[in-house]
């Protein structure tokens, strides 16, 4: 079982992205860290290499009612406690680096986000529908 | 002429075999159900199923050869019904001749080949897959089955089932001398009938319905009939070859003993299908050629040594 200290992890992430980030402390001692979208892959590579942290439990995308122009993508990791990476994407052109090539388990999660929110994962081939019907033509359902 | 028709249509021909097969199917399903803590079907269920199948619409996928698909179950049915005429029933042998065992075995292989062809002509992917499996299975069980069944023939020095039974009358039932051969014959019979646990060609979770996936209606009904008659005849044959010492008895006693032996074999077959899991086709081939064939050869060697 991996057990990683939240503080150590945050320090390492700070080293990777080389700038400050917002931290949203959660209710149960978990943390959400907001990182720039271009750094996502670097951060995850670092987490996998340094901490052997590969337990990605899911990817959530959402749009907050107070900020309609931004799609938030949350990567929920498990490091002995809950830890999430948050990426904010512009709604008109949501583009994000894929991580399936380094962490194959992210495949279905990414496909679901792509389908439901129209996020384009750069580096992935054409994604066939996962949950929606083949002839679905009404755009991403959550937008 | 009249007696010929009687033999052909009533006993031991069509009617008797159909009734026996329906009874066998009911008994088998009932026993299996009781092994599995279910209630099981009422006695008329197999007949009702047959009537239902015959009254249903007959469909085949586009591209399937309808004529061949119709002929295959008919040919198989005639083959097994003919084989039935030569198998003694409780010592009753109207058409016995020297070498009828070979004729019976040949006629009983016809449905297996027709089954394979049925898979090929009905063009479904599962059918073709099931068809090729049935052929592979054929090569795995048929050789040990034939070697095992030649044991009684060698022991009595005759290829006539009646002669084998007469020899048993003086020597005692051959199961006492060839227990291994009997077990092999039962295994071979299960393989021939494609029953659990050797239902590899029609394994539901793997190839849906095997070669018969695309068959419906009357053709399916005929196939069911063929399979059940084949099962009944296989059991009759094993009874005669290994437990057939009743030839010289009082006919009434012979009938009672025959029925009891038949029931025991049905229980063995149902029990085997209840307690064993299905093998993989490569495991079956391995079992057939690495274990069953050497065992059957050993059995034959033993029989020949005993004869000397």
């Amino acid at each position, binding site marked *: *079982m991996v057990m990683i200290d939240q503080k150590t992890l945050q320090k390492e992430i700070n080293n990777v992205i080389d700038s400050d980030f917002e931290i949203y402390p*959660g*209710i*149960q001692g978990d943390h959400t860290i907001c990182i720039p979208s271009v750094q996502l892959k670097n951060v995850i590579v670092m987490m996998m290499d340094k901490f*052997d942290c*590969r*337990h*990605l*439990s*899911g990817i*959530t995308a*959402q749009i*907050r*009612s107070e900020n309609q122009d931004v799609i938030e993508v*949350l990567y*929920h990791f*498990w490091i*002995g406690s*809950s830890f*999430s990476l948050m990426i904010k994407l512009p709604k008109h052109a949501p583009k994000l680096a894929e991580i399936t090539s380094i*962490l*194959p*388990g992210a*495949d*279905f*999660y990414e496909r679901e986000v792509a389908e439901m929110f129209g996020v384009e994962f750069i580096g992935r081939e054409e994604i066939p*529908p*996962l*949950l*929606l*019907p083949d002839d679905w033509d009404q755009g991403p*359902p*959550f937008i | 002429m009249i007696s010929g028709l009687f033999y052909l249509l009533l006993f031991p021909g069509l009617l008797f075999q159909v009734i026996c097969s329906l009874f066998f199917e009911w008994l088998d399903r009932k026993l299996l159900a009781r*092994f*599995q*803590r279910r209630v099981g079907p009422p006695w008329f269920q197999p007949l009702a199923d047959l009537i239902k199948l015959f009254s249903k619409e007959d469909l085949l996928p586009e591209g399937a050869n309808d004529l061949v698909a119709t002929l295959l179950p008919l040919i198989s049915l005639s083959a097994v019904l003919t084989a039935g005429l030569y198998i003694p029933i409780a010592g009753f042998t109207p058409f016995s001749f020297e070498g009828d065992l070979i004729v019976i075995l040949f006629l009983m292989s016809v449905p297996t080949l027709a089954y394979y062809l049925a898979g090929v002509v009905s063009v479904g*992917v*599962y059918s*073709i*897959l099931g068809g*090729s*499996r049935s052929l592979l299975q054929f090569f795995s069980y048929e050789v040990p089955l034939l070697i095992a069944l030649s044991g009684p023939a060698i022991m009595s020095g005759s290829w006539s089932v009646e002669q084998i039974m007469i020899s048993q009358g003086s020597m005692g039932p051959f199961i006492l001398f060839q227990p291994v051969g009997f077990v092999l014959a039962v295994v071979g019979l299960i393989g021939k009938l494609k029953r*659990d*646990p050797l239902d*590899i060609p029609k*394994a*539901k*979770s*793997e*190839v*849906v319905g095997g070669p018969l996936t695309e068959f419906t209606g009357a053709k399916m009904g005929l196939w069911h009939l063929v399979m059940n008659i084949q099962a009944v005849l296989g059991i009759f044959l094993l009874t005669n070859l290994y437990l057939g010492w009743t030839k010289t008895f009082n006919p009434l006693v012979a009938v009672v003993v025959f029925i009891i032996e038949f029931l025991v074999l049905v229980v063995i077959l149902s029990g085997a299908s*209840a307690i*064993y*899991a*299905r*093998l*993989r*086709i*490569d*495991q079956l081939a391995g079992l057939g050629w690495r274990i069953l064939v050497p065992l059957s050869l050993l059995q034959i060697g033993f029989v020949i040594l005993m004869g000397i």
Partner: protein
Amino acid sequence: MNKISIPIGPQHPLLKEPLTMNIDISGERVLGGTLRLGYVHRGIERLAQQKTYVQNVHLIERICGICSHVHTTTFCHAVETLLGIDVPIRAQYIRALMCELERVHSHLLWLGIIAKHVGLDTIFMHTWHDRELALDIMEEVSGGRVSHAANQIGGVRFDLSQEQEAMIRKTVNDLSDKANTLMDVIENEPVLQARTKGVAPLSAETIKNYCVVGPVARASGVDVDMRRDHPPPPYDRLTFNVITRQDGDAWARTVVRAEETRETLKLCHTILDEMPDGPVSVRAPRKVPEGEVVVRSEAPRGELLYYLRSDGSENPARLKVRTPTLPALNLIPKQLSAIHVADIPVVMAGVDLCIACADR
């Protein structure tokens, strides 16, 4: 031999729920396959945003037909965390008891299915018969065999009477005996072993890379169990063993689930022994304060993740459900290479599919 493509699904005797796989085979060898989900996609995440929290408890229950209770428990736990209310301990124990019974019947269901897939119909019939005992308990205490409607935000809807407790103890004992007999049969059945040993082995490395959880991961030596690692109440007070195996093949998965069934039945007794007296629910407000929370729990098939964000209204602003089957499904195409056609059912069963969960 020629390459042919066989479709498995949406309707196929192998599947209990709809899913399509196109499997390329050559003779009896499987070359690979692709997967298509979505036949039972009901848009529950979106629908949940339009319903109130109270209604959502019942909506969430319909995500799955096997592990419905653990879904509502996790959802209620998430809402209660946001509300900051303490659920009475007795209610937590009743929830846990239901969760464990659900694990028992889910594992028994699965044992029956793998038995059926390898042609052992007798075991299938017997396991499903015994599984009814667990469902009987559920029906006795909650009134529902499959959808129990046991949870409400702030507790559970019913209390256990003395007689019910005695009945549960008796039935669990009964079930333990029967489960032990069944496991003995399964573990000593030579053909079942021949069919599952060495089939589609998964290394711990693969499991980690594919983020797979639950019994499949534990059968490959990845020791994760959210009941122990991130215990939602009352699991922090309970002690139990987490079963792991190292081989990672279909046989190891069978053994892990069989052992887990035994262990879970023991845990049921522990829960009943340690269950305190007291109330079983507290009043919860309809409006949930702003905030977001990630909760995890251990469903029969592995880690279940709920992400819940509230904007202060009566409806959730976003509810995300990640069921354990989803990553496991991802692994199926990977396992479908260089195996026999006859192993397809074993591979599919080994993952313990719950398509309704995966589709939502």
